[in-house]
């Protein structure tokens, strides 16, 4: 079998590579719980609005866990997308623009997701 070890590629720092690997492992742990709750244990296959709100309020660890999940998954997806784009050998200027776009998208998605978590917890209060 060919050497398929993951390692930083040209244009990717060791820190970014490490964040990608570590966030991937952390996502995996939370994703198993997410899959089980939302697709395997939910009584009707998917949770209703009332069930989501009740679930978040009764188990405060859940929104905290979902918040971290959001952070890890956004970081992993954006660093992974950047890694794929590096395979296309973009120019340094284009990569700089993409980096700015990825950071902006990451910040926006994280802010939106955290706002949404609080909106669900406080719904109807």
């Amino acid at each position, binding site marked *: *079998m*060919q*050497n*398929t*070890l*993951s*390692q930083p*590629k040209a244009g990717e720092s060791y820190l970014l590579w490490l964040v*990608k*690997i570590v966030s*991937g*492992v952390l*996502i*995996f742990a939370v*994703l198993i719980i997410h*899959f089980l709750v939302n*697709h*395997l244990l*939910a009584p*009707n*296959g*998917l*949770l*209703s*609005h*009332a069930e*989501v709100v009740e679930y978040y309020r009764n188990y405060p660890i859940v929104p905290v866990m979902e918040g971290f999940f959001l952070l890890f*998954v*956004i970081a992993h*997806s954006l660093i*992974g*997308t950047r*890694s*794929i784009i590096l*395979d*296309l*050998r973009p120019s340094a200027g284009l990569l700089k623009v993409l980096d700015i776009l990825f950071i902006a998208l990451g910040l926006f*998605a994280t802010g*939106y*997701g955290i706002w*949404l978590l609080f*909106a*669900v917890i406080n*719904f109807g209060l």
Partner: protein
Amino acid sequence: METPKKPNSRGIFDWFDPRGRNVGGWGFIINRLSAIGLTVYLYLHLYMLGKLAQGPEAFDAFIETAKTPLIMFGEMLVIIAGLYHGFNGLRIALNSFGIAVPAQRQLLYGVVGITLIGTVVFGVRMLTAH
């Protein structure tokens, strides 16, 4: 991400070139394709979850839509991609830190096996729950 065997001469078109590709190479390609699919799904998912803030009518109507065959098929693809990418990612992480490197091929077969079993379990559950 794993390193392809061949030098990358044609960008993503090399991903679909079957010539000289071995099991690990295909594992790499499927990992990439599942990554792209899951990334697109992630941002769609975040957008659709915004309906939670709009109230029960909006969210529950969306959940009813999610139970239609086409969306359920899409969900199954997400589950397949999630299982494969997750378990293959664990394999890559282990190998990257020098763990179980000689067993890469066997681990990849294990990843495919777990993905198939998980797909059947989730598929049966989804079809019987709706």
